[in-house]
């Protein structure tokens, strides 16, 4: 164990090339997945929160239920979709970072949609009458509500990023954990642990923790600045 830690610190201090390759790919895949998921999920959440149309309640239940999607099931479904004989096999996405981004998006979108919908719905309920009496259009109303809810929505994005960064099952299946191509931190930790190579596994685990702390600290600073301005 202590030898594992010593090796981990040597790798981090020595800026081990393989280690940082894995870290950079993880960051690229997860941040891209979360950004794209936000682009899809936030407008969808806003429509579910503010819109009134048939089937809305059913959609909300469905999205909430999808928050608990097992990653391996998502991985399997995408594997079948992207495999050579699958309907999207022609795209040749299997075992590429793009497939991993799509898998993480599928897992992050329900979480971000479901929680954002609640945040936006609550904020909308608070502001609706006030904005109507000020003469706001629907677009102005939605813009105001989204801006006012930005602090809470940032936390939702963090929850999505947490889900993406910590994901193993789906990216293992669609990415294949191929060295120098699709190996990310979580799949590498799983593999190296099973091989008994605790040094690399521990180093990756430590960096994963530090990365998560850094992102959360940055967001916390931003939020406290907003809160000071808003006193709310």
């Amino acid at each position, binding site marked *: 164990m202590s030898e594992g830690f010593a090796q981990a610190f040597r790798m981090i201090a020595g800026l081990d090339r393989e280690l940082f390759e894995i870290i950079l790919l993880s960051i690229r895949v997860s941040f891209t997945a979360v950004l794209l998921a936000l682009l899809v999920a936030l407008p969808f959440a806003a429509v579910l929160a503010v819109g009134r149309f048939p089937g809305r309640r059913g959609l909300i239940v469905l999205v909430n239920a999808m928050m608990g999607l097992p990653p391996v099931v998502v991985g399997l479904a995408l594997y079948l979709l992207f495999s050579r004989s699958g309907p999207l096999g022609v795209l040749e996405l299997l075992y590429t970072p793009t497939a991993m981004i799509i898998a993480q998006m599928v897992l992050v979108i329900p979480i971000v949609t479901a929680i954002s919908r609640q945040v936006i719905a609550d904020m909308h309920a608070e502001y609706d009458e006030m904005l109507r*009496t000020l003469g706001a259009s629907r677009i102005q109303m939605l813009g105001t509500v989204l801006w*006012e809810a930005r602090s809470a929505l940032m936390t939702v994005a963090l929850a999505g990023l947490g889900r993406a960064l910590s994901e193993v099952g789906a990216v293992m299946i669609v990415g294949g954990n191929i060295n120098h191509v699709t190996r990310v931190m979580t799949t590498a930790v799983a593999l190296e642990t099973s091989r008994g190579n605790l040094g690399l596994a521990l180093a990756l685990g430590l960096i994963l923790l530090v990365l998560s702390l850094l992102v959360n600290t940055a967001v916390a600073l931003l939020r406290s600045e907003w809160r000071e301005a808003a006193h709310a």
Partner: protein
Amino acid sequence: MPELRVLPLHPPVHPHPQGALLRARGLVIRRGGNTLLGGLSFELPASGITAMLGPNGAGKSLLLRALAGLLTPDEGEVALHPDIRGAVALVPQSPVLLRRSVRGNLLHALAIAGVPRRMRSGRLAELLVMADLTRCAERPARALSGGEQQRLAIVRALARQPRLLLLDEPTASLDPRSTAAIEALTRKVVAAGCKVVFVTHDWAQAERLADEVIFLHRGRIAEVTPARRFFRAPASEAARAYRNGGLLL
């Protein structure tokens, strides 16, 4: 509180229409089998302050929301003078302010009202002076005192240059100093050419402010009377009992 400047809500986009500013005919609002407003009909004159007076639960706030178009009556209609369509503003008893500075709240309202960007800072300064909030401009709106928040909400409602401003118990739970400031601001709004309906259950306040009184009791209009006559001798039994401190149930 320093004397406020009277500022016209310029440009005067809504000239005084002839006759009534607003006509309500047979307004009925029911909720859960109860009739909360039972067939109200009245007219609002084009200027001055109409006090809507009555005990708690008389239906004052509900009527105000119906006049503002925030809820649709089950029967009857509210007909606005064609000149003021779309220019009725409501400030609720507990106004909701954005989680922004005082200045941010007003600029947001001016933007929504469609005031061109180059004119916003001038209008902002006018509204701040009118509400005596210039020195608080950069403070978070939700950190203001109750009276200051109410004044901010009132001038924010003026961003649209309304012809009719509906104030729902703006001085409820405020101290006398803050109440005086709100009353002064209300007079400034009227002087600037805006009709005001001021909901209150405070007899003395209605007497200080009103040009006309609508007395509501149990979801019905007990009387609509010019203020001078009303405060000398109310015509309705309900208003007389209320004046004499009787418990109107």
